[in-house]
Each structure stands twice: as C-alpha cells, then as structure tokens.
C-alpha cells in the first residue's frame, strides 16, 4: 500500500534550517530505492493544501529517513513535528537512480548542494554495496549549509566540501571544485542533485568529458504519482523532446536527456 498516513517519527535531528527525520514505515523500507521520493502532507487543513516532495535520505530495517531544509510554509510546519508524532506520506515515488551495470572497484562521484545532498546518502550506500568507490562533492553557501559532512565521512565516503565563503573546504562553487578534480581523471559515473544552475553546470562538465551523469530534477508537484501532469520539463528521448513528468519519468534523468533552457 503506497499511502502510509501514520509513519511514526522515531528520531529527529536538526541543524538550523536543516532537519533529519527517521520514521517507521516497513512497506516503504521494503521497496524504496535511492533517488525515489515521498509526498508528505504538511498540514491537516487546507493551508498548505498540497503535499511536498521530499527525497528518501536513507533506509534500513523497517525505517526510512528524510532530510530537508525549511524553504517555506510547508517545510516549516513539517519541521515542527516531534518524535512520536506521525508523517502522512505517499511513496516510494519516481524511478530513482539507475544502478545497473558493473560498479565493483569503479569510481562513483556524487555531487550535491544544499538540500540536494538528501538523496545522495542513500545512493552512496547502495553504490558502496555494489563495490563502488564513492566520492561526495558537497557544496553550500557557508559551513552551516553542510551539516551532513561528518555523517557522509562516517559512512566511509571520501568527502570534499566547498563553500561560497570558504568557511569549510574549497572556497567557491562545488562545480568549480569538481572541475578541478575532474582534471585528474574522470569517474565512471556522476550522480547529481542540487540547485538548477549547479546541475546544469555539472551536466555540461560531464557531457564534455563523456562521463555518464544522472541528474535528479526538481519541479513543483501537484500529486507526485503521475496524475496531474503538472511537473513536466522538456526531456529528449527517441522523440526529440517532449514535456515529460518529472515525478513519474524521473526525477532522475540522464544528463543528455535534459534540455536545459526549457527545463
């Protein structure tokens, strides 16, 4: 049953605007894949009316995690939720990252900025299981926007941080850091989630070097499960380019499927 109206929060951690909830949801935990998301109800009444899409951040035996940043009213209400209270969510939704093929011993680079880091932990762990050597490029405006660097390191990932103000790691955009590192030799695959300009820049870097890159797009979503046709972006497939649903056909796309000026 893909609608869990009462997933109990069993742990929560907060860093300023950023929040991490662990909740019980055996059905979700049994089927979820990295890159998939849930649609979360943020209020009981009609304000906000729609659910909000949030990526799955990690999962284990009967539980899953989400990691989110307060962006507006919906996420602010969500952030008020306490341990023991419940989440009303639909999922897992979307296709997630494509992990087929041989990863053993190969380099997987994950690039995330701000709240975009959310799905990359779950993904990194899955790649690890497949034997990949996982490196994470984690960018933010300031040190405060990189609360999970330690968690990623503890998981055994090689973590490189960047901040616009240099308060942690490389000073500058995470894409500039990535470009510098790419010069030393390309990975077998790039996995990206973050603000649009970051994703576009990363996609171009990858395409110029022929590195397969998978990008997780965002869109305003009405339903999250393919019913409203509200979340479309221009996606190139055999057909040359059509409005496709980010929720159902994505949210993860190959870099060369995305038509950036119209996405």
């Amino acid at each position, binding site marked *: 049953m893909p609608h869990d109206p009462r997933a109990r929060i069993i742990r929560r951690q907060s860093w300023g605007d950023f929040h991490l909830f662990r909740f019980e949801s055996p059905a979700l935990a049994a089927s979820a894949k990295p890159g998939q998301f849930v649609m979360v109800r943020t209020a009981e009444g009609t304000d906000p009316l729609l659910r909000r899409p949030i990526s799955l951040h990690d999962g284990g035996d009967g539980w899953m995690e989400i990691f989110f940043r307060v962006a507006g009213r919906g996420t602010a209400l969500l952030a008020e939720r306490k341990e023991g209270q419940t989440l009303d969510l639909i999922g897992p939704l979307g296709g997630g990252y494509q992990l087929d093929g041989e990863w053993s011993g190969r380099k997987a680079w994950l690039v995330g900025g701000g709240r975009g880091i959310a799905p990359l932990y779950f993904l990194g762990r899955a790649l690890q299981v497949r034997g990949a050597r996982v490196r994470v490029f984690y960018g933010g405006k300031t040190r405060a926007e990189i609360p999970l660097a330690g968690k990623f390191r503890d998981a055994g990932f090689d973590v490189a941080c960047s901040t616009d103000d240099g308060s942690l790691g490389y000073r500058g955009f995470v894409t500039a850091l990535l470009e510098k590192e790419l010069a030393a030799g390309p990975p077998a695959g790039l996995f990206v989630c973050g603000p649009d300009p970051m994703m576009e820049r990363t996609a171009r870097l990858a395409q110029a070097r022929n590195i397969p890159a998978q990008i997780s797009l965002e869109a305003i979503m009405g339903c999250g499960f393919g019913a409203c046709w509200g979340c*479309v972006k221009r996606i190139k497939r055999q057909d040359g380019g059509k409005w496709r649903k980010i929720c159902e056909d994505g949210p993860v796309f190959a870099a060369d499927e995305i038509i950036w000026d119209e996405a």
Partner: protein
Amino acid sequence: MADLSADLGFLRLRNPVLTASGTFGYGLEFAPYLDLNRLGGIVVKGLYYGPREGNPPPRLVETASGLINAIGLQGVGVEHFAADVLPELRKYDTAVFVNVCGADNEEYLRVIDFLEGQDGIAGYELNISCPNVKQNGACPALFPEATRLIVAAARARSRRPLIAKLSPNVTSIVDIARAAEDGGADALSLINTILALAVDLETRRPKLGNIFGGLSGPAVKPIALRMTYQVAKAVHIPVIGMGGIMNGADALEFMVSGARAVQVGTANFVEPGAALRIVEEMAAWCDAHGVARVSDIVGTLQA
C-alpha cells in the same frame, strides 16, 4: 446501510461520487490507491482528437487553500486512448465518462465520432469551459449561444449521454445552463476552474508558464456551491456539482444544494484515495442521520 445510488435519469450510478476530469489521470494511475470498482464513476482527462503538448511549465502554483493549474490539456489523443487506455478501463466495473475537448466546434465532433465506435464509455462530458487553452481564458461556455450550438451539434452526433461542463467565469451561470439544456444536454456539470493569476514578486513574472491558469480546491467551494444551487433551481436536467470537495460533508452540501452527483478533483492529488473515502463518509453520514437514500437530500436546502 443507506442506498447511495444516484439516478441521473439516463444512467444510474453506484454512488454519486465521480472523479473530476484532469485530476484523476486516465483512472489507471489511481488503481494502486483505491478500488476503481467502488467509485460512482470516472471522468477521464480531457481528450482532443490528436495528442497535445500542453502548456510550458511551471504549470501549477499553490495559493491559499487553492491550486492554480495551467496544464493546457496535455494528452494522448483519442486513438492512443482507445487503443491503450480504454481496454484497461473496461476491466473495471465503473462508469467511464470521456471529457471531450476541441480547439473548434469541429474537433469536438471528431472526438465524439471517433469514440462512438468504442465500447466502455458511459457518456461524454463536453469540456466547453477550460480556461487554460486560449488567450484570456476564452471558451464556448462563456456565451449562451456558443454553448447552445456546440451542445446541439454534439447531441446530434451521439446517443450517448451528454454532460455539458460549465464555466464559473460568467456573469450569469443560469443563462449558460439554460442554453446547454436547450441544446439538448442530458446533464450539466460545474464548476470548471476559475481564471486566475499568480505573480512571482522577485522575478516580476507570472508564476505559470501560461500566465493565467484555473483556480480549484477548497478556496472555490463557496462559489461552486452558489452556482450549483442557482443552476439546479433553474434547469430540469440533473446537475453534477464540484469545486473544492474534500470530504463527505462537502459532497453532501453540494447535494443538498441541488446536485444529483458530485465530482472530486484537487482532493485526489492530496490524497489519492480521497474519492473512496468520500463515498464512505457519505454513507456513514446517511446512516447516522437516518437517511435511507442519499438521493432524498438532493435539493433540500431550505432557503
């Protein structure tokens, strides 16, 4: 247990709850969330003759207790619908209505002509009221004569039940309703969405790619109830009410105001099982209030 069936004259529905066009995909998208066989019926997403691109994104914006959409009727067209969707839908025991669209009067008729050859369609809902396709929301349902003409033309092409879907963006919904009745509609459904605008202050651009969109959801319920009441009093054919229905009480309010059946729209996005929950809440309310047949409350508003 109360009798929930809804008699539309031309058709008897298991219960009065239909899903509104454009908010329930082609129906199949919701099969994982609810038993389609237990719905009163499904109105599928609007269909033009050929496939449609729809409007550029963003296509949705949330407002206070409401949703503005400007999907622009992106869709697969009748041939694909008949070949791939309809056979799947026929496996369910529920009334399927096709929401018929047209860029001009002729296209509406072509859609109907094509679908006449197809089984498993309980009737047509003529979408003469979509505000998201033409400049400034223009559509036939803004004008009585245009409404009467297209309804009459559609009527002449098919013996299947014909529902005319009305627009709220008018001075007198009653005039349009009467025109549709004159044109031969078997029923009226209302309201479609209300023409609306949302502005992004930071970029000073409209929040929707299409500039304007259509407002739906709880915000519009008081307007939809008013129009349902006005129309039900003015015409002799059944009225199907909608606009912001989120629960059984909302649905029953529309029925008390004169609707023989209702449609559930935006609520499907918030909760994919909403339509069925609403059926259950209506049944529970009838039982708790000693109402033996839900149809007994239709039009009982003491005003």
